[in-house]
């Protein structure tokens, strides 16, 4: 058992898979000698050699194409996009090519690529670094999009992602990398993709969240509990396709829900969740399903970031609005 940060847990997941399977390759900008700008690939090149863990030229589209070609020749690429705000440079490879490969080859060629990338706000990065662009990925059929909220989940989910024969976009919230530690088993384990986790049980309202908003929602749930409201907090973990069964079962129990995301209201995946709840559980609802999100502006400069991002207080407020509807 290690007491690890999420960054360490992610490194360990990659180490595990590099050890386990010769065909696993880790590459991207600065991931080798430097160990990644967040040190998430720290030590891996030393341990596995430049042949398995390597720096690429500075070109995201090239990295995506490289991953596809390597996958076609029997490898399991784990490619890193240094910051997810740069995904536009490699959008074709991920959303245009990997996502449709299985279908266009009539199920004969697979695309076992893991796209790892840091994202997420509250750490005062320059522009185009922190944006929550998971919605763009989630709107692409054929991709799985995974966003862990803690070290334990991150390790199990990343191992599953690397072993998955379909492309998985694995997004690592920058604020979670080192903000807390957790006990993580040193041995390997997997967490099934596509399954949500109930992080806190409750009967009065369901709070559906992912990534850093899980921590915020847990704090909000504690505050609500002080006022006698028992909130159930669901961590989606895989945000696309998401675990609709767990969400619906919870909503049928609590009859109320809010969805919390860091992304802007028109982005992210909250709308999709609200739509599914409406289609499947409208008669269980005592109130409309509301969303806690950032406003529909461009991702702002760092100075206004804290005011712009959702926080526990806003979640509490929104939950009360639903409860008092």
């Amino acid at each position, binding site marked *: 058992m290690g007491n690890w940060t999420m960054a360490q847990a992610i490194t360990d997941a990659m180490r595990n898979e590099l050890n386990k399977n010769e065909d696993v390759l880790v590459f991207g900008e600065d991931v080798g000698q430097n160990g990644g700008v967040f040190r998430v690939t720290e030590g891996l090149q030393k341990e596995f050699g430049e042949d398995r863990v390597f720096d690429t030229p500075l070109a995201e589209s090239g990295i995506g194409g490289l991953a596809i070609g390597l996958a076609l*020749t029997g490898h399991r690429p784990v490619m890193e996009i240094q910051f997810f705000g740069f995904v536009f440079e490699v959008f*074709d490879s991920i959303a245009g090519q990997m996502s449709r490969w299985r279908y266009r080859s009539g199920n004969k060629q697979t695309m076992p690529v893991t796209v790892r990338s840091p994202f997420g706000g509250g750490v005062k990065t320059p522009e185009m670094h922190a944006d929550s662009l998971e919605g763009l990925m989630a709107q692409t059929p054929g991709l799985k999009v995974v966003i862990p909220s803690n070290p334990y989940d991150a390790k199990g989910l990343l191992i599953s992602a690397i072993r998955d024969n379909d492309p998985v976009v694995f997004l690592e919230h920058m604020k979670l990398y080192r903000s807390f530690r957790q006990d993580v088993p040193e041995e390997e384990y997997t967490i099934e993709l596509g399954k949500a986790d109930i992080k806190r049980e409750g009967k009065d309202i369901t709070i559906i969240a992912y990534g850093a908003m899980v921590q915020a929602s847990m704090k909000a749930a504690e505050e609500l509990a002080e006022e006698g409201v028992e909130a159930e907090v669901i961590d989606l973990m895989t945000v696309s396709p998401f675990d609709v069964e767990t969400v619906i079962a919870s909503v049928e129990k609590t009859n109320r829900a809010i969805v919390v995301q860091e992304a802007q209201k028109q982005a992210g995946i909250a709308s999709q969740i609200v739509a599914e709840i409406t289609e499947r559980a409208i008669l269980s609802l005592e109130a409309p399903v509301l969303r806690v999100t950032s406003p529909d502006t461009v991702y702002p400069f760092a100075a206004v970031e804290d005011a712009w991002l959702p926080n526990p207080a806003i979640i509490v407020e929104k939950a009360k609005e639903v409860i008092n509807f």
Partner: protein
Amino acid sequence: MSTKTIDQVEEQFETFQILNEEGEVVNESEMPDLSDEQLQEIMRRMVYTRIWDQRAISLNRQGRLGFYAPTAGQEASQLGSHFALEQEDWILPGYRDIPQIVFHGLPLHQAFLWSRGHFGGSQFPDGLNIVVPQIIIGAQIIQTAGVALGLKRKKKENIAITYTGDGGASQGDFYEGINFAGAYNAPAVFIVQNNRFAISVPVEKQSAAKTIAQKAVAAGIEGIQVDGMDVLAVYKATLDARKRALAGEGPTLIETLTYRYGAHTMAGDDPTRYRTSEEDDEWAKKDPLIRFRKFLEGKKLWSEEKENEVVEQAKEDIKQAIKDADKTPKQNVTDLLGFMFENPPVNIREQLEEYTAKESK
């Protein structure tokens, strides 16, 4: 000072030729070592492809094919380069590069299925190292860098070859792909078929560079411009590039100067809007088939009779291939859903159920 540098670079990219327009050998020392049978096989493939192109155009007009990008004029460039490959080599084609993958082993009826937009067209026979023809211009170039690196890692004695056009050489992915392959010293061969037009835009408007081959310089890889109507020159340049790649001497960019006689695709393109009949006539004189036929006739290796045999064979094969394509069960939405993921998640499972019910009615 700086223009002098460009002049010096451009001088190094003189067009490589072996056969002139009269079918005479003008570059004896570069003559590839090919048997009489091989020379005849190259001619057979070019004639076959020309007939197939004519038939495909007419089948398209009858509504019996789907998307089709004519290839007449480009036979030397496409088939000459392909002839230099080994069976295990990988081909990452663009949408016009169907002849290469068919001669690599893709059954003709599957090429027709692909044209119709049926996934059966890309369910390749096992062990055939090809990739579905690329529509996004440039994507195949970065993917080629990956396949080539993959082959190198797996210690295969094989290369990855890819094709794009003069327009494709303007894409960012083109530069990223050749740069990556160079940086990894990966066994890749990049062919740019400069047929003078990207849909309607002439190559002069693509770039201020006088040749596309010289773009190799910036990536630090070999580059060569070849007479793309001269099948022997294209063959030799590709063969040399392949050898160099396998000897660990890095990738090569080959620019083939060629011409597409027909429309860009059969989806309503009218080449008279952007080029003159004089230009067409000028290029018709350089025809790769005429030139190579003359060469072979000079060696008593080709005759009208032989040519007619190939024409008949092609027509028969095409007829049969269309029949086979017609026999293929139609594509269903359930197939599409079934191929989305290895383990279908709940949304896919539900939609599969829905469409299975609909489609079994």
